[in-house]
């Protein structure tokens, strides 16, 4: 008890150290904290980290064009599922703390459990992307930069009408581009 009191007094009393060194310590502490924070953010954005729970879906990604293609550009989980803008990213990361509960409960710990939950997870992600106008697609696929003359007749028709007018967003048509689909029987357009 005495020790705690002593420590508290030390914290509340003005420091005897020079202001410069206190500032320097704060500065250094800041750098270390910020670095560690960012490292944590990076570490939870890697394929290995996602695979810990979502292993089956990471396997599915590997067969798609977003993973393996002629030009060697690759989109990993976080490129599409974690917002790139800092504030949005923090919001999503905080939401993800809920997913730790799911991990501890083993909600999708087996292939069967995952299949049973595939629709739920997919619908939630489609909804998220619809709400932010498919922002994660647009981080790479910018509508302004699209050359319709290079597109096939089918894509040109859709992109120059429904997408251009804002009536539809990417994910309305491009579902399951990086994963297998859930039961689509009650999904509009299927």
């Amino acid at each position, binding site marked *: 008890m005495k020790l705690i009191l002593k420590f508290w007094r030390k914290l509340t009393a003005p420091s005897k150290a020079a202001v410069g060194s206190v500032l320097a310590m704060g500065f250094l502490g800041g750098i270390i904290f910020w670095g560690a924070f960012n490292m944590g953010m990076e570490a939870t954005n890697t394929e290995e980290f996602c695979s810990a729970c979502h292993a089956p879906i990471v396997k599915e990604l590997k*067969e*798609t*064009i977003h993973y393996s293609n002629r030009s060697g550009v690759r989109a990993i989980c976080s490129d599409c599922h974690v917002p790139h803008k800092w504030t949005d990213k923090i919001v999503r990361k905080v939401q993800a703390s809920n997913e730790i509960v799911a991990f501890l409960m083993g909600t999708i710990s087996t292939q069967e459990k995952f299949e049973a939950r595939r629709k739920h997870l997919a619908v939630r992600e489609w909804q998220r992307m619809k709400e932010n106008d498919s922002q994660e697609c647009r981080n790479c696929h910018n509508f302004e930069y699209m050359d319709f003359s290079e597109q*096939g*007749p*089918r894509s040109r*028709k859709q992109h120059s009408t429904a997408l251009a007018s804002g009536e539809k967003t990417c994910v309305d048509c491009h579902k*399951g*581009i990086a994963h*297998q*689909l*859930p*039961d*689509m029987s009650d999904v509009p*357009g*299927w």
Partner: protein
Amino acid sequence: MRKLLAALLTAGALFSVSVLATETAEIENVNNGGIASLRGITELDTTREADELKRVIKDRSPIDRDYVYQPPLVPHQTRHYEVSLNANKCLSCHSWKYAGEMGATKISVTHYQSREGQVLADVSASRYFCLQCHVTQVDATPLIENDFKRVDSLR
């Protein structure tokens, strides 16, 4: 103890050497008699260089049929179009519900019948896997000469 270990190790080494020896044994009688098949003259003990992969036609107008009752060919790419228990990507354009809106070819009415000819409300399960009959095309030259001619009505 040490002697036993040494004996075991030598036995192991001898065994692996003998395994290696049998694996690298030469295959005899590799001569195929100089007969050229569709893939050229290749001896059995040589691995032929793979052909270039053909590219699927990206997107073009419908391809004319060569005979009556031919399943229409697919004039576009179908890479990663899922056709599974959960989803059928082909039907999101070619089903009767969407064909008009999407400007796609409607699937034939025969696909809405059971084997016994009974009319069904949706695509028959036996017709569900589109790519079993309708196939994508590549720009490939025929391997052998072909003098097939279309029937008069299609000429």
